[in-house]
């Protein structure tokens, strides 16, 4: 003999019951993740010591504002150029063959060392001393090296550039055509 009803009495918990239920859940989570938590605590401790937490707190606390300032600052030709150059350079760095460059760099280093040792002098190098200097095996090796480097630099590298192949198709009506 049940009449239809929409009345539902929700289970009411006292503040105390809710609190102990919540505490129980937290406790369970703590125990289940003991190792991870202890490790995280030690990381947090280090971060705290170095003031990183305070910094992050400011950053996250004002997240939108900070991001907005950051983005607006970044949105200038200089910054975008920097970023652009960085991206370009990163790309170029990837193409360098360090194995081949290493000996070259060592040689540049020792050249730089010599120059650093040398005092600024009034001494001038005459045409004859230049020719004479070619006989010096160290100088001769350096010149040969430079010559082959120059030859390499003269080679065509267009295809290797990180740019689109631009087609030289001439369009009667560029820009306005449809997609």
């Amino acid at each position, binding site marked *: 003999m049940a009449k239809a*009803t929409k009345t539902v009495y929700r289970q009411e918990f006292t503040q105390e019951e809710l609190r102990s239920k919540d505490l129980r859940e937290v406790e369970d989570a703590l125990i289940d993740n003991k190792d991870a938590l202890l490790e995280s605590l030690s990381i947090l401790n280090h971060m705290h010591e170095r003031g990183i937490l305070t910094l992050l707190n400011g950053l996250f606390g004002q997240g939108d504002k900070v991001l907005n300032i950051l*983005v*607006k600052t970044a949105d200038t030709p200089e910054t*975008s150029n920097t970023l652009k150059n960085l991206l370009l350079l990163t790309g170029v760095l990837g193409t360098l063959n360090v194995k081949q460059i290493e000996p070259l760099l060592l040689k540049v280093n020792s050249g730089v060392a010599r120059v650093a040792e040398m005092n600024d002098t009034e001494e001038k190098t005459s045409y004859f001393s230049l020719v004479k200097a070619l006989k010096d095996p160290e100088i001769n090796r350096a010149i040969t090296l430079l010559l082959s480097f120059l030859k390499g630099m003269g080679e065509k590298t267009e295809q290797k550039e*990180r740019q*689109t192949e631009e087609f030289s198709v001439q369009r009667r009506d560029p*820009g306005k*055509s*449809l997609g």
Partner: protein
Amino acid sequence: MNGVETEASDKSSVLQHLTASDLDIPHVCYHPSLGAIETCDTCIVSVNGELVRSCSTGLKNGDIIETASEEVRKAQVIGMDRILHNHELYCTVCDYNNGNCEVHNTVKEMKINHQSIPFEPKKPYEADRSHPYYRYDPDQCILCGRCVEACQDVQVTETLSIDWERERPRVIWDNDVPINESSCVSCGHCSTVCPCNAMMEKGMEGEAGYLTGIDRDTLRPMIEITKAVETGYGSILAISDMESAMRDERINKTKTVCTYCGVGCSFEIWTKGREILKVEPHAEAPANGISTCVKGKFGWEFVNSEERLTKPLIREGDAFREAEWDEAISLIARKFGEIKNTYGPDAFGFISSSKCTNEEAYLMQKLGRGIIGTNNIDNCSRYCQTPATLGLFRTVGHGGDSGGIKDIQNSDLVIGVGTNTSESHPVLATRIKRAHKLKGQKLIVADLRKHEMAERADLFVRPAPGSDLVWLSAVAKYIIDQGWADEEFIQNRVNGYGNYVESLAPFTLEFAEQETGISKEELIRIAEMIHDAKTVCVLWAMGVTQHSGGSDTSTAISNLMLITGNYGKPGAGTYPLRGHNNVQGASDFGSMPNRLPGYQHIEEERVRKNFEHGWGVKLPEKPGLNNHEMVEGMHSGTLKAMYLKGEDMGIVDSNINHVHSGFEKLDFFVVQDIFLSRTAQFADVVLPASPSLEKEGTFTNTERRIQRLYQVLEPLGESKPDWQIIQEVANAVGANWDYKHPSDIMEEAAQLTPLFAGVTYERLEGFKSLQWPVAEDGTDTPNLFMEEFPFPDGKAIVFPLQWTKPVHFGEEYDIHVNNGRLLEHFHEGNLTYKAKGITSKTPSVFLEVSPELAAERGLKNGTLVRLTSPYGNVKVKCHITDRVQGKEVYLPMNDNGDAAINLLTSSYADKDTDTPAYKETMAKMEILQSEGTDPLPSINHRNGNPQPQIGVNVQKKWARKDYIFPGDLVKKEMR
């Protein structure tokens, strides 16, 4: 191909062949489910020296194809450059950056680093954000036309087009109105097929990416930086690829099967926590492919509704209190025990749900039969499709669709009888609309209302209510009299022909014209169209079954298909369109009073022995009560306890005042639901269940197709999947079940049921599916009756019939109250009203009134009327439309208050199955308040203004002065 000889099918395009040969040709507008659209010009290759679009070029023997030459590459790059002119690349801060953006991926594949035509915003257009569920951003739109193609030729709502004549073309809705004011039915096709972020689900906005939720003010400069910094797209794309990969960590994509009708659409749901970002259909989904309707695509808000039940409820007097599971289950066990001891097992009734899984239907009947010991078990197909099943059992032996949706799509002639297909089975309807629009399929519609399918039909007839059997029989008789019957088929495959022909004698054209109102000419035309078609499919639904003679009319349909030989071949047969996701499965898996799983008769000893052995119990022998009889049992005092799950019987059964007073007489009533439904309000214990998105299992769609659903979300609160709850109840009353997963249940069911012998979860993984019968080796049956009918001699039966006239309510009840579904709301609406966007466009029920009746009675849009039948009354506002005529009104069923249709319906029922005769409802009308607001707001799609065309009209793009085909441009340059 590139100098190598290869073999190819002459049916495929160059692009299809190249892709199949693992040669990556760029393409953006081509979509496997849409075909060639020819707008993007990126798939250009050289065929016999000509530069052509590979998507639309067919293969011929001896063709010489070049894909790698410089001119090919140049032409493709021009195509892509033009796309990028229309689309700003800011992938990392774009919500569409999920690994499947085709603009992004094509730029990457083509190794394009810079564009020669810089991006230009499409001024003066603003993004259109008026629609509740998706937005259109013209600045991101690449004008590929996929959305238009999908809207015009897949969904065939014909709302979208591209206006190619403007300086900057864009997509427009109807004749250029805001999206929300158009004829858009919110099916979601456009946002599904959009290759980029132009047409995007709003659920994704600001949610999908890590950086996309940022304030607009901050986002814009960020996009500027991203663009300024680009050294070429390579590095930008690399960063966005990383970001996209990171998204996988927090966005889950889970396959599920839709629960909003019997079509069985499957798709992935993208979630972040409990938030649903979007529904993403896939081409490989067997029933729907890329298609969805508004409910499947956008109607899932209810899962997070605050009204969900999250704890068991126990009645105390006239209220419920929340309780713990243990207390609720032991209360049920104690009460069930007492009632069984006092009154015996047949004092129990069990109601299974057509929204729950096969496994749950199986367990419910196992609990009723095996543990309590009664066959009093039924499900809601009693309210809809049982007459169709009976009609098919009488004639062809299997109660299911003869074939699949593909067969309907490929049929020469589709006949819809009493089915409002485009609203009740929207995705299935799209296949007919498309075939009719593009492939020359013919369509006959017989219905009271001029709904969308009727508008599109080649022949639309409006038979008098309840007279379908008459015209079907008259057409059959005419066909036989003309000598057009398929004699060979009848000879070889049909029994009982002689008796049947005799039984048709009264159904002359004259008689039919007089009783149905369909003219002789129209009847002859129907017969001719059937005669002319090589294959015919008949689709029917509640307009046929919910009548006093529902089973007979279903039988008449099957008879007509038998005598014309329209069985046992692809593209033909009978299709009782199942209304719920698992109407088919609930009965398939034994939630019926007279049949065990797989339609095995409870009265057959051999069958019973098999189950008794399998379950280790003794089974009751005589068929139990159906749900109609259970209500009578409540009133007569023989039914004392009821366990009902997932069924709002107190709203959906007919004559609900009578049902409610029955509920009140029960000694103990357990209801399992996700909400405190109207039915649950009468319960003694309410158990909180989990909806489909929170559990695993299988559903069987109208094609007899079994599909798996995976768990998208965790059960909310303390709610549980139904199979777990049933198991707990069963174990509390002495069962000793130990099902760990729904697959354990399916394994057991398959062992006991020859129809499902080969069904396993492994064979149903992901988007895989099986259409029953499934042999032990896993071979399934897409088309029934190819070799024989499941009768002893393999022959079908034509079944003689007489016409049952519809119920007469008396002269004063002069209004015929037709009733049924709406596209956008599911049933009484307890799920879909929770979707704010749907409710904003369709806030309430309305009464469709014809202009004639409106003029006669002085009704206007918004007039509040009362309809009164001998069983009750409803109050509802009028909406005047010529979808209905004369004194026939239409009351959709989406209300559970004062306008609930079943306050009017009677307890009259189909004479053979007890399915309520919902469609035989008459009432009288009085005006309560003459002036009011139209219950159908102006932003409802029914007020839109569709603009039909075929596809995207790419020729108009090509005709533009500023358009030159990239191939021609390159050739000119090379010369």
